[in-house]
């Protein structure tokens, strides 16, 4: 057992933290919110140059062969600074489906530009009736003239800058996975602004024609679940980074804000609340370590370990952020103060890939079902 980071992992962490410290002050971030697609194309190029976009891909595929731990290191650092660039969508979702699907021609065509920072990706799985369930998919894929024809609607697809969509679609009684270029004439996109500053989109597929090779897997539910599970761990790492920031920022604020002639941090009622914020953060971090080991070790309990993490992060993430708002008083409910932006991001993380209730149920099903 060893929970420490390797030398390379530590270097990666340092360079990420340096990037966040120099590029992600609240004012710098506020500017990016108004950029096209609500993130910085320049930052994305920097990520490519620093090799961050290649982290979770094998060397044969042009990557550096990193694993879940490296992805979590990236996302925790991004969580601290509320980084907007769509690393999870492009690299961990779209990129990992491509890399693992076994479809060599699609991987060859798309992974190189993705790793070079020239291609943005998204995973289009959610539908109006599905809520958090990956398998309840009503978008349909039919075989036609040796290729495929897709029809259906996907909602709240994260990363409106995506050039390539990975679409889940029912074909027969299987869920297939398809690589759909966003400029396919059968694709209509409606951009939505989200409260965490990101741009998402609703995607309508109307007789969207694809060649046979654009089908990544005809029965792809297992791959989809696996990729989503690992991305979920990375999202939780992001949440832990955000929680870490929040409790520390609250402690700092309580040392400087004075009421009744003393720093509010001197009030024992508030001290205990901040200790709890710290404790909740460390509890989440502990389940993060558990899930990281579980994925790395290919553990039998990986499903419940990931769901335990997501359930706890969903609940405690919001709780820590709500406490941070409360202890900042009026300042906490302003747009200007970044505390509220962390709350919004943690709320969105909670409802991405299933909220705390969903994952508690999934944990029960994995653990107690006969």
């Amino acid at each position: 057992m060893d929970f420490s980071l390797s030398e390379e992992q530590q270097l990666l962490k340092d360079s990420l933290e340096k990037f966040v410290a120099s590029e992600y002050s609240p004012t710098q971030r506020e500017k990016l919110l108004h950029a096209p697609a609500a993130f910085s194309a320049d930052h994305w190029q920097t990520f490519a140059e620093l090799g961050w976009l290649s982290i979770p891909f094998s060397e044969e595929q042009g990557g550096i062969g990193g694993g879940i731990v490296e992805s979590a290191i990236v996302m925790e650092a991004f969580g601290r600074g509320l980084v907007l660039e769509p690393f999870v969508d492009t690299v961990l979702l779209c990129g990992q489906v491509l890399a693992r699907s076994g479809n060599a021609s699609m991987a060859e065509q798309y992974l190189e530009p993705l790793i070079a920072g020239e291609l943005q990706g998204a995973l289009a799985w959610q539908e109006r009736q599905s809520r958090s369930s990956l398998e309840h998919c009503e978008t349909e894929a039919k075989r036609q003239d040796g290729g495929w024809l897709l029809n259906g609607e996907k909602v709240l697809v994260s990363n409106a800058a995506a050039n390539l969509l990975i679409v889940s679609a029912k074909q027969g009684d299987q869920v297939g996975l398809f690589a759909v270029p966003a400029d396919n004439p059968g694709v209509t996109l409606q951009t939505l602004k989200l409260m965490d500053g990101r741009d998402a989109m609703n995607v309508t597929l109307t007789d969207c024609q694809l060649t046979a090779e654009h089908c990544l897997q005809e029965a792809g539910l297992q791959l989809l679940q696996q990729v989503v599970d690992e991305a979920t761990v990375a999202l939780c790492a992001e949440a832990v980074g955000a929680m870490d920031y929040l409790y520390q920022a609250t402690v700092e604020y309580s040392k400087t804000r004075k009421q009744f002639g003393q720093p509010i941090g001197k009030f024992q009622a508030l001290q205990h609340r901040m200790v709890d914020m710290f404790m909740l953060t460390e509890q989440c971090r502990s389940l993060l370590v558990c899930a990281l080991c579980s994925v790395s070790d290919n553990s039998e309990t990986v499903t419940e370990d990931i769901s335990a993490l997501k359930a706890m992060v969903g609940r405690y993430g919001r709780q820590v952020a709500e406490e941070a708002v409360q202890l900042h008083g009026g300042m906490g409910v302003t747009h200007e103060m970044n505390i509220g932006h962390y709350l919004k991001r943690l709320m969105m993380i909670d409802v991405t890939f299933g909220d705390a209730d969903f994952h508690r149920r999934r944990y029960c099903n994995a653990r107690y079902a006969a």
Partner: protein
Amino acid sequence: MHAKFTPEERVFQQEVREFMTNEFTDELAARIRHPDSFREAMIEWQKKLDAKGWAANGWPVEHGGCGWSATKRSIYSNEMALAGAPDVVPMGIKMVGPVLYSFGNEEQKARFLPATKASDIWWCQGYSEPGAGSDLAALQTRAVRDGDDYIINGTKIWTTYAQYADWMFCLVRTNTEGKPQAGISFLLIDMTSPGITVSPIISIDDEHHLNEVSFSDVRVPVANRIGEENEGWTYAKALLTYERTALSGVGYCKRTLQRIRDYAANERQGGGRLIDDPDFQARLADVEMEVTSLEYLELRVLNAVDKGGAPGMESSLLKLKGSDCQQAVQTLYWNLAAAYGGVLPGDDHQNVSGHAYGDQARREYMFGRATTIYGGSNEVQRNIIAKFGLGL
């Protein structure tokens, strides 16, 4: 012991229900939701209530109040909330009104009470300052006497709806010696006076409700002072008590729970309806139990008042528990909306999520974070209950 209304109370309940259904139209609701028409639409609504004689129902009858029992007041506010209709903007009728009829002189009463009741004056509350939030008595805005005027310098913050206000009731420092509470005066300030600057503060729900209001050599006639110089703290404290008990929000909680049940019956999750999901039911039940207990807490307080008693320390719990309950309901509502709650409205405040209530769930949750902060934060409420309620 029973919880039945008398026949007269039932008739009253029916009357209120019908009024709300007929008068609070969808069209009016839509205009109140839109920031550009909010002020005008709220005034229109308050004028409808005033025409019915209900706008200032809590005031003494001689000033146009209704003389209702506490039970009737609770029926009224419940029915209003269940109809989704907003209560009057509190600053005028619920906050400065009682101060005016309790401590104002005859001239001030004649000048301000009828106009306040008729919503011809929009009031804002100038208490908090950058350095004086929970510790309100630390306020620094100076008022220096100059003939028949005071000259005001300083800054107020978090002033709700100052951008719409005609007048502000304001706490200022008229004496810097002795205990901080002892040097405060209560002034009424015309917002069109030269030297006042109102700057917007955008809040966490991306809306403009809050403001910073700065005063630079603003002249205010001494005749606009309520009561005695340096006695303002007493009047302000009376007002704060009034503000706190007005805040339990039972009706709002019940209406939102009703919505949540309706929506959950239509929301699909995987194969089935969300309302049939035992996990969801358990969460809904947890919140409903909290709200029912809040409702009975409020009824107990009101019943004690109707029987001629003074509201005991339970009434201090109302704001505390009421704000907790509102937030619990809002959190459940947000969870029901799931990720759709994260979609911001498009241009012109239109809901573009393709989802009926996500937008509302987000706004209510977000701004709801402030319910445990304003009107005396929940931490300060606990300090008060510990000290005066439990004698610690």
